[in-house]
């Protein structure tokens, strides 16, 4: 813009200025987010990187005063407990969200959505106590399964709400087109609505899984913890967040480093889950 164009008035410059301001604002917001990202991830790495080695990933925890040892049983335990939780939470969350959005009957759908929103605010320790009352007390013993129930309770509302929002944004025109072609309603949902919203669905699932992977408080009264190898979900089992909590609150520097290292491993697991599920999705949608 060398010579001022007489067709452009003050209004144009004002709009341009607002645009610049807005972009600046967005950049600032994104910058703040990235700043915290880098600071926190960097700090976790800084505190824990030195403790990560092959032994850390493959051996059982050792008592204090002995160097070495690892978090292998907790890694496997967390994987089992969260996988079991996801097997319960994903169908319920997705299925209920489908019901809420695709079958908008008089009251049930909105009530379910409302309940899910209320459930997101329940503190994780209260969820743990609930799972304790529901599963541990009647069966008389702590178990990995009760931990899965607690995690499922935390995961369902996250999956439901993000899936519902995703379905809501699928344009009706797509559904109409599908129905106009004679495709029945359920096939429309499975073949049109779900694939179109799959990216957002996956985000919801990944967020829910990473939330569950990191919650320690519910495990206190459910999965309980176990210093030995165990693959049995019917008995106490070790989980990573509980281990982090125990190590971080002890007076030993060696255990502190292990807590940070375990946190870093957890993040790597979240990243891998995120990348793998997205890659899997991209593969499928190319068909």
């Amino acid at each position, binding site marked *: 813009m060398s010579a001022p164009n007489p067709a452009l008035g003050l209004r144009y410059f004002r709009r341009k200025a607002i645009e610049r301001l807005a972009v600046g604002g967005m950049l600032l917001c994104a910058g703040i987010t990235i700043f915290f990202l880098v600071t926190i991830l960097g700090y976790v790495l800084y505190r824990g990187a030195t403790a990560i080695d092959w032994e850390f990933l493959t051996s059982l925890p050792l*008592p*204090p*005063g002995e160097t070495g040892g690892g978090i292998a049983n907790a890694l496997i335990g967390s994987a089992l407990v969260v996988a079991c939780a996801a097997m319960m939470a994903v169908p319920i969350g997705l299925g209920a969200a489908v019901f809420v959005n695709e079958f908008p009957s008089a009251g049930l759908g909105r009530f379910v959505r409302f309940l899910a929103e209320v459930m997101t605010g329940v503190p994780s320790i209260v969820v743990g106590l609930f799972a304790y009352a529901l599963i541990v007390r009647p069966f008389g013993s702590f178990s990995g399964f009760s931990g899965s129930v607690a995690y499922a309770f935390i995961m369902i509302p996250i999956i439901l709400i993000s899936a519902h929002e995703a379905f809501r944004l699928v344009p009706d025109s797509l559904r109409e087109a599908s129905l106009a072609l004679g495709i029945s309603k359920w096939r429309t949902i499975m073949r049109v609505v779900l694939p179109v919203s799959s990216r957002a669905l996956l985000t919801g699932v990944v967020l829910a899984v990473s939330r569950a992977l990191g919650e320690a408080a519910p495990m206190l009264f459910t999965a*309980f913890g176990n*210093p*030995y190898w165990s693959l049995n979900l019917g008995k106490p089992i070790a989980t990573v967040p509980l281990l982090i909590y*125990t190590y971080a*609150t002890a*007076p030993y520097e060696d255990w502190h480093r292990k807590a940070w290292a375990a946190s870093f491993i957890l993040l790597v697991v979240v990243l891998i889950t995120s990348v793998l599920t997205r890659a899997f999705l991209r593969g499928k949608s190319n068909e």
Partner: protein
Amino acid sequence: MMKVKLFILSTVIIALFAAGEQAFAGCPTKGVKELTGAGATFPYPLYSKMFAEYVKVCNVKVNYQSIGSGGGIRQLQELTVDFGASDGIMDDKQKAEAKHGTVLHIPTVAGAEAIVYNLPGIQRGQLKLTPDVLVDIYLKKIKTWNDARIKSLNPSLNLPGTDIAVVHRSDGSGTTFIFTNYLAKVSPEWKDKVGFATSVNWPGDVGGKGNEGVANSVQQIPGAIGYVELAYAKQNNMAWAQLKNRGGTFLEPSLESAALAADQPNLPDNMEVMITDSANPKAYPITGFTWLLVYENQKDEAKADAIAQLAWWMVHEGQQYALPLEYAPLKGPALKKAEALVKKIKANGKPILN
């Protein structure tokens, strides 16, 4: 003939001796391979070391998780664990709610609590405090470090005019129980106004989560004062105060002076006693036991055997792991009373160990 009789006799004696030895070897004899326990956080590092060694000696896996003394008591009441662990003594109501009758409090080790502070230039052990000054600091009656009463105890120190930031535990804990119990013993005013429990209505200032929360807050806030388990004070290189005990001596917290607190006459048989403000003139005043909570009358003979053997091993062979991990082992009269309590464990009326 005589030789044969002698031979048989000596064999029998040796066999009996060996059998007797076996009963006291500390390993379960009736086939139990796993035990579950829950409770206090304070002894968790020690117990995890003990149990890691125990599985090598006896091939029995003990799964102990530190969910808090209250949690341990509750799980024991509801019979979801084989034994509990607590830094505090069960009160009558809790005992009444224990589903299987009387609960034995078997002490395993003792620990000391340090009074830590953040005063630039004043090193560990330089600050001297008396019980009444400590109480009034926590009651927010003494507000600045250069208060006359603190100065008179420490004439040679350069005390600043900063406000005293009082740090306490925000979560319920045995550490608080021991500390407030001590304050209640030395100050009727504290006993009246605040009392002692795992969690109290503190007159002021900052609550930190866990020992590490308190340690951190004290380290970060200039002019702060707080109470933490000795291991945390050592681990974080914190400055702690000398405290005047009942006998009139100023003492720094240490494992030796803590063990001496347990060494006092007239310990009750059930060992349900707080050893704060000990009568022993060489003992550090803020000390406490941690107990194993076990039902006196067990249902299952095999389990009872396993628990009794474990408890016996913990108060004998297990004690060697205490000092390196900053715990005070049981000595003298305390050890004897602990042994007597372990011997009380019975199954269906029959004692396990004799």
